[in-house]
């Protein structure tokens, strides 16, 4: 066996074990450097035993198995990708929506817009009413965008396969795209209303399209960046 073949076999074994491309490139790069050092040492000592060099490194299969084992030991998200990139995104959006709505309710309270004591002619009510469409749009879009950005960052740090980030982005996009919020400010005669739910429409509004596309775009960008970094590392 020669050095190139050993490295090629190592790469094949690492890929077979579904390690992320960025990690595979780095690993092969370091092992290639190590192998060069071993071969240089062998030449300087006039040792003829090339087999011994590979024996010192270990077989590609053994080294790749060790790499896969250690890699998955490192992070919770690497050990439980389904939980982290499928279940958690489902939970994250309702939590963010409720947190955002709570903030809105508290803000309205602070502005004095509460049921039973509302002056609809007041500046605060008029301002809140004018801002309402934008607030609803923000409530629909921002949690989904924040959630997508969070999982993109998590996937990048944990160096999990891009497929997990893609899964998370689809979950967020579907949930985010189906979300509907309706807010009506209280008036002198009527109580305020706040509705949060999921609704499906065959002809979605521009807002719903944005709710669906934005998480996909954020995660897509993160995946593209991850792949580009992997390629740069390979050419380095």
């Amino acid at each position, binding site marked *: 066996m020669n050095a190139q073949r050993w490295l090629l076999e*190592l790469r094949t074994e690492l890929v077979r074990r579904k390690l992320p491309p960025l*990690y595979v490139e*780095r*690993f092969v*790069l*370091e*092992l290639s*450097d*190590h192998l060069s*050092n*071993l071969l240089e040492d062998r030449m300087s000592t006039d040792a003829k035993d090339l087999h011994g060099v590979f024996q*010192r*490194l*270990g077989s590609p299969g*053994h*080294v790749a198995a*060790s*790499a896969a*084992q*250690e*890699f998955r*030991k*490192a*992070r919770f998200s690497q050990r439980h990708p389904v939980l982290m990139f499928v279940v958690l995104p489902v939970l994250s959006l309702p939590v963010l929506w409720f947190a955002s709505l709570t903030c809105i309710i508290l803000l309205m309270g602070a502005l004095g817009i509460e049921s039973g004591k509302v002056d609809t002619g007041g500046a605060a009510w008029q301002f809140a009413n004018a801002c309402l469409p934008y607030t609803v749009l923000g409530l629909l879009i921002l949690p989904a965008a924040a959630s997508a950005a969070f999982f993109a960052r998590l996937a990048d740090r944990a*160096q999990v396969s891009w497929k997990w980030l893609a899964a998370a982005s689809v979950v967020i996009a579907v949930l985010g795209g189906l979300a509907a919020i309706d807010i009506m400010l209280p008036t002198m005669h009527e109580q305020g209303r706040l509705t949060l739910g999921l609704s499906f429409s065959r002809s979605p509004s521009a807002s719903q399209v944005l709710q669906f596309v934005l998480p996909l775009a954020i995660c897509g960008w993160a995946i593209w960046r991850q792949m580009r970094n992997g390629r740069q590392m390979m050419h380095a």
Partner: protein
Amino acid sequence: MAIRKTNPAFLNGVPELLLLELLSRRPMYGYELVQSIKLATGGTLEFGEGCIYPILHRLETQGVLAAAREVVGGRERVVYRVTPRGKKQLAESVSAWQRIVGAVNHALQGGERERPALAS
């Protein structure tokens, strides 16, 4: 780091301890580190050299080590150094190791016989 068959299985955690100790003395790249382990242990502990890197990468992910590409000996290499968190972990590991070695030595030297029997 996979320990070869020449080393017993109870050496779990020892490679990490050795790596941290040697890297706390000075930053090193992988090959340099392997040579240092051989020197430091007098060749008693033999490791599959290719398997040292997965452990280094895991320790890096855990924030115990930091890695940076640096030119060493005219070649760009990944150089590892211990972080403040790694120094803390090393101190804890050394302390735990000394306790265990002391306890095992005590038992091997007949320490059990000096103690009263716990159960009849």
